[in-house]
């Protein structure tokens, strides 16, 4: 049996259930990720508690199976623990990078299951680049950003939204989407491009 730092573990567990106030100092994500380089388990716990719902929600949306989604979430957070040096805070914020990593792992899992892995030439262990924040982007907090993105996507043409969702959540290519929706390839490309550009305009307006 392994001994451990009992009190902080249980305080954190109770805090996550809202039973006792969380007395840990609220540090920014970038600082916590930096601490992972020193094998700081407490920093890892805080990052997990802060972001596991969003990561799991995204992976579950892609895979539609709770058990498999949990395996992928485990894989994502262990990759973070073991490769914290891959995140460069100078380039951009942590959450989009983490969610991109989660999406990539979930789609890898989906492709393996659907035997479409021949299409994935990249290394499955490759970590995504950190997305830089555009100049026009305002720092919306997580809840307001979620509401804004959902509202803007709801304002797209249904076919644009559908095509983007098929590409994002199911990892389909333009030609696979065209086949699924029984539409010309050029039409699908336009839907996706124009839909994303409208999303960009909406976020610029919000800024």
């Amino acid at each position, binding site marked *: *049996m*392994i*001994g*451990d730092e*009992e009190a902080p*573990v249980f305080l954190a*567990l109770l805090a996550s259930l809202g039973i006792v106030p969380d007395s840990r100092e609220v540090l920014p994500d970038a600082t916590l990720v930096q601490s992972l380089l020193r*094998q700081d*388990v407490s920093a*890892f*716990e805080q990052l*997990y508690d802060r972001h*596991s*719902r*969003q990561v*799991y*929600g*995204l992976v*579950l*949306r892609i895979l539609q199976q709770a058990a498999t*989604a*949990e*395996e992928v*979430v*485990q894989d994502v957070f*262990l990759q973070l*623990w*073991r490769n914290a040096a891959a995140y460069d805070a100078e380039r951009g914020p942590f959450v*989009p990078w983490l*969610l*991109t990593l*989660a*999406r990539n792992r979930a*789609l890898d899992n989906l492709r393996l299951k659907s035997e479409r892995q021949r299409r994935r030439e990249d290394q499955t262990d490759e970590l995504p680049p950190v*997305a*830089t*924040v*555009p100049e026009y*982007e305002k720092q919306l907090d997580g809840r307001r*950003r979620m509401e804004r*993105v*959902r509202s803007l*996507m709801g304002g797209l043409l249904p076919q644009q939204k559908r095509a*983007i*969702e098929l*590409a*994002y*959540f199911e990892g*389909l*290519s*333009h030609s696979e*989407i065209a086949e699924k929706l029984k539409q010309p390839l050029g039409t699908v*490309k336009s839907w*996706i*491009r124009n839909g*994303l*550009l409208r*999303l*960009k305009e909406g*976020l610029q307006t919000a800024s």
Partner: protein
Amino acid sequence: MTNGDQFRELIEGYSLGALDPEERASVEAHLASGCVDCGKALEEARWLVTQLAYLAPEAKPSDLLRGRLLQTVRAEARAMKSAKVSSAIPLWMWGAFAALLLFTIYTAWDTTQLNKQIAAINEQAKQEIAKRQELEEKFAIAQREAIILTDPRSVKIPMGTENKELPKMEAIWHAKLGIVVSGLNVPAPSGTHTLQLWLIPKAKDGKPIPSLTLRPDADGKFVLLVANPPDAMDTTKALAITEEPAGGSPQPTTKPIWVGAIS
């Protein structure tokens, strides 16, 4: 439309991962050529695609996942610290021998004193070697547990209980490395009793095969590593845990508290 325009129109699809292989290869080649406009457009498109993640509703994963992850992470952190500590030992030993050598050259100590010093250093060296071996063993255990918990080939065996007041347990069986059984908030057995793991064979009249025993710690944490299970997974029907006297029993003396069927 220029060639650059054609690539520019593919940037959003590229950042989404939606291009077919040939188009993806041509865009990558174009980006590698150093097109500034497309490079800037790609940075913006990457950011845009990250925002699509907010379309998915949040969901809470199980507490067992959190427990499993933290267990692995703590095991790896300990293993790293042990490796650092054990690598420091030779420097101390060399320092001790160097000090002894200088002392014998520059002082007038007699042979008896010198022999006593050598004996003391040897004894300390033995203790350090024993400590190092102990650390290496702990490191090996931590490594084994981490691999069992995270190897996708490991089989997860949920262990339920009829007693609603007891937490569930989970066993993870790796065909080559063994079994890890874990649970949180597990109440301690009464008195000096212990919890014992059993392998229930598939054979029709097969008796439960005894395995290791363990008591949860003071905080109810239960983590049992069985590095060499007494039987193989493919001949085992289920795992069970009973409460037994200290030291365990050759056969169960009480009804199973937790049972997990192997599918």
